[in-house]
């Protein structure tokens, strides 16, 4: 029976093709926004936790605060020093602290020459683990550099796979500035495009090859003792460094941050963006619902005589309500289907655009079946709710008046 009612209702929707299309635009836009937002929002959160998850909340990063923007090591004015590292190590609650050096470097494989970053790692096992954990570095092929590897390096995934005409191989030699070194390992993608595009090398040879001041660091990473509150340690480090440099709060030339802080602020931004898009989607769905209501009310007026006929041949109020509700549900569902398709397209487009812009697959859309089904059910629900008033209007018509209606 439902199939038959649906058939009649669908026939009516198709009959006023252009009006039906115009009617569902609001629902299409609203549903597309909701679907794109939810799938990307989930993807963004996944990306953020993937980025920071492995680092853990028990590490604190100290970076110089320069006047300009840019990656650490490029434009910062006041570098961190070995004195800073010594002070950080003495702070209560710090288990282990290491310094890292970053520098642009010219690399050539004998054919092609390009600039990328060199990133230092400490030689001793425990410190090296701290750096690798904090940057989410994992070996894909070969091995990590360690004590004694003066002329050996590890390369990031992008350097190995994409920068040169032939992918770099383990045991291959490349030239850093004027020094020939051997690739002993290749990293897995880390999710951080800067690290993926880096050469990883022990700290001491790096300073030698690139003539870097032996007192300076670009980043200091501190591992917190178990059971200590990260934010307390963060504040103590900041205080000690201020004392050393003799500066007041707010005048620091350095920044102390813990990953949980970064994740929290990113999540806050996400929340705001979500709220804005949800607001727009809600308005658009509301407008869409009113559009359906308007169309259905017009249909009821236009089909007054038809309603009279349906009553004359035995249609009851509830049967006529059902017919009209099905019609508005079909409008809602059609808007939902098109909106979902558009929303999936939008989020995939954003993923591709994000990939093109950052060169990494950081942003992923997480599209789930419950999301798609839920969106369609919701759209049909909007259609039905918007149709209730016009449908009741239709069913309440007096049959004699309706039949006489011109």
């Amino acid at each position, binding site marked *: 029976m439902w199939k038959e009612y649906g058939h009649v209702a669908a026939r009516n929707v198709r009959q006023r093709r252009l009006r039906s299309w115009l009617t569902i635009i609001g629902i299409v836009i609203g549903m597309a926004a909701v679907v794109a937002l939810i799938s990307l929002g989930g993807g963004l959160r996944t990306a953020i936790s993937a980025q920071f998850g492995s680092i853990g909340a028990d590490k604190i990063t100290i970076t110089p605060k320069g006047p300009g923007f840019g990656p650490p090591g490029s434009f910062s004015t006041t570098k961190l020093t070995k004195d800073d590292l010594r002070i950080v190590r003495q702070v209560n609650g710090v288990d282990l602290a290491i310094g890292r050096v970053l520098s642009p470097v010219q690399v050539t494989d004998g054919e092609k020459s390009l600039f990328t970053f060199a990133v230092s790692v400490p030689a001793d096992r425990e410190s090296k683990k701290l750096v690798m954990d904090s940057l989410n570095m994992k070996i894909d092929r070969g091995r990590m550099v360690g004590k004694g590897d003066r002329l050996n390096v590890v390369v990031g995934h992008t350097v190995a796979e994409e920068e040169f005409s032939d992918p770099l191989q383990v045991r291959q030699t490349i030239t850093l500035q004027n020094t020939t070194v051997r690739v002993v390992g290749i990293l897995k993608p880390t999710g951080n495009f800067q690290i993926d595009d880096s050469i990883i090398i022990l700290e001491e040879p790096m300073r030698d090859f690139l003539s870097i001041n032996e007192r300076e660091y670009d980043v200091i990473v501190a591992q917190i003792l178990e059971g200590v509150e990260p934010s307390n340690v963060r504040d103590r480090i900041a205080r000690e460094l201020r004392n050393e440099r003799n500066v007041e709060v707010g005048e620091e030339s350095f920044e102390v941050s813990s990953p949980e802080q970064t994740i929290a602020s990113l999540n806050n931004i996400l929340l705001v963006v979500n709220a804005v898009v949800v607001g727009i989607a809600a308005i658009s769905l509301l407008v869409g619902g009113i559009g359906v209501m308007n169309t259905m009310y017009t249909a009821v007026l236009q089909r007054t005589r038809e309603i009279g006929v349906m*009553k004359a041949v*035995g249609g009851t109020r509830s049967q006529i309500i059902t017919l009209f509700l099905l019609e508005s549900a079909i409008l809602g569902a059609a808007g939902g289907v098109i909106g979902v398709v558009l929303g999936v397209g939008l989020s995939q487009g954003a993923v591709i655009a994000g990939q093109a812009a950052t060169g990494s697959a950081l942003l992923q859309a997480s599209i789930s079946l419950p999301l798609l089904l839920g969106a369609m059910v919701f759209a049909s629900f909007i259609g039905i709710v918007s149709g209730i008033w016009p449908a009741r209007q239709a069913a309440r018509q007096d049959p004699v008046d309706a039949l006489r209606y011109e």
Partner: protein
Amino acid sequence: MTDTSTLIRLEDVEKIYQMGDVTASALAGASLSIYPKEFVAIMGPSGSGKSTLMNMVGCLDTPTGGKIFLEQQDISKLGESRLAQLRGQKIGFVFQQFNLIGTLTALENVALPMLFQSVSQHERRRRAAELLELVDLSERLHHRPSELSGGQQQRVALARALANDPEVILADEPTGNLDSKTEEAIMALFQKLNKDGTTIIIVTHEKTVARHAQRIIHIQDGVIVGA
């Protein structure tokens, strides 16, 4: 007055319209009886209450006074949904304006009354096709009303009126929009249906139409003046 053989019986039926302070009386105490398998014509001047009477008999409208019996059941006080069911099961309407649904094909129009009676799709299509065959339209099953002539549309409407095998067919000036040749064809069809046992009540101005009936009821100013 307790004649149990009547199909339809009206007792002092009144329909008074209140328009502000003014009242207009469309029916002012009409009484009549219709028997099964009759073919009755109702005649009267314009505004005499013919359509109002038909709507009462057809359960489309309720009287402001008096009683209407359909198969001994008083329908004058029934609720809306019960009336709708009675219309669907016992009454077949034929209108002057045909009143087919423009978006549906001939077959679907004829099947519509059965949809409301929850007849299965298979049975609906079978019976609709059978009825269209009866009115000689088996070549036009899938045509829309706009693709049919006036006479053909009225035959579809007749087939639709027969869909649920009603007790009575009520036709309010069914040939009012048709030329005289088509009128003859439609009236022949009514006669055929009547011969097959269907009760028919027809409202008309035309003597040419009324002469097909076995009995003519005259109405004037809302009262029956001769049966």
